[in-house]
């Protein structure tokens, strides 16, 4: 995150930097919201139980009428496109590490909102992954 701030301060103008920061916030908010509501919707509709062609079609039909799934889908799509916009405004080596925050936030969301059982081992694993992602794009 600090690396992202550093990279952002080297951008052309204060307005540009503020826009980029706002865009990063949108990416994180959209992907957290998208993933959480998608998972909630999938839990409600059962998701893809079987993978036969007819079963998949039936699942898609069922999910397409679920508001949570649709919300999740639009959240993930919005996150993807805001990420694209962000990548065109700031270097990838600054953007990718900053998105590592979503790993921590979404794990918290899964624990608090979705009531998943996040064991200490999983907490450590998620934290390791987040730190690794923050390092990997340098």
């Amino acid at each position, binding site marked *: 995150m600090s690396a992202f701030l550093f990279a952002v301060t080297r951008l052309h103008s204060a307005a540009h930097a503020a826009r980029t920061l706002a865009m990063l916030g949108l990416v994180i908010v959209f992907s957290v919201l998208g*993933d959480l509501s998608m998972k909630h919707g999938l*839990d409600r509709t*059962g998701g893809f139980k079987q993978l036969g062609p007819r079963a998949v079609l039936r699942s898609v039909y069922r999910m397409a009428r679920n508001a949570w799934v649709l919300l999740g889908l639009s959240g993930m799509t919005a996150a993807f496109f805001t990420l694209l916009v962000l990548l065109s405004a700031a270097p990838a080596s600054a953007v990718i590490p900053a998105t590592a925050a979503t790993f921590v936030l*979404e794990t918290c969301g*899964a624990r608090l909102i979705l009531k*998943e059982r996040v064991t200490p081992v999983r907490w450590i694993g*998620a934290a390791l*992954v987040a730190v690794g992602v923050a390092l*990997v794009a340098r």
Partner: protein
Amino acid sequence: MSTLAGTTSSLGGLEKALERLRSDMRQMGLHLTVWDAAGNCAGQAQACLLTEALGGDCAQGQQEMKSLAGRIVDSGQEQTATLGCGCCAVGVPILNRRRVIGAAVACFGVESCIDPQRLAQACNQSGVDRNVLLARIEGCCRRTTQDAQDVLRLLSWLLSREQSVQTANAELATLSANLATTYEELSLLYRVSGCMKVTAAAEDFLQSVCDELLEVMNIEGAVGLIYAYPPGAGRDILVTAGAVDLNADQATLLGSTVAALRMAETGKPILDNKFSPPASSGLGSAVRKLVAVPLVLPPVVGGMALLGLFFFSYIALLSWADLSYVLPTTATSYLLVAVLSHFLLGEQVSWLRWTGIGLIVSGVALVFRTEARTKS
């Protein structure tokens, strides 16, 4: 018509331009002769307009103009003289890189040139009516000696205009020749840039390409334009190197109207020898030759299709397992990206990056040990 045989002169390729200038000035009732530094008359020496109208010999006048030209070449200054026939002659030096290479002398008749005795003699010789002859010579004798300064200014202005046109044409010709001979190098550069992995920011990369072009191709200036295609897909980037007299709008117009569209259709570099810029660009004939290469970018469409596939499997996976399980384990993609870019693209992976990959792998291993689904 009396003539003085013209000899070969050395005016640095200006002869053609001066010939054009001579006919222009003739329309204004001025007679132009051009002399090189050695005192040779450029082109076919012609009698002055007055002599041409009346007939007779202009050898005397030519000699006087020659000596005037000699004085101009020696002094490097503008000179004015009155010739024996009554004509007024003014001359300016012709410069080539601050060196006097010759003189341009213009002569024009004044009222005192209209000598009744000479007119009568000319009537007898040619059998033309006196009034017709009078009207003819009044056309070239309408100035007075006071006009000498004006004619001098006109002459030097016309001369400098011809010379700058001449210089510009010569430079364009050299530039065109250089570009044509190095087109092969350019297409090589294009092929290389296609294989090159752009690691620097686009602007820095383009700048280095332009600087390289200046070095390699020995040209005066280069403009690099990354034109976002399709229009509006991103920010246009313009860099210049060397002596370039284009503003951003003009260069962008060049890129957008011609280069980008044509390259997008063919995907091939453009070499246009007879390039005419769009009228709205205000470039006139300043740009005669256009060379453009497309920059090769990863195929976006293929990337989109892969992304769709990823999206589907991600949703399927999410419906079978916890979000807190799926999310960390899909970070394995970072490992794949690093390994693929190392082995397929030959990219250098820094130790910091390997550390990050190690952390991701150990984190994923930890998450794998937990139960995939904790809710019923």
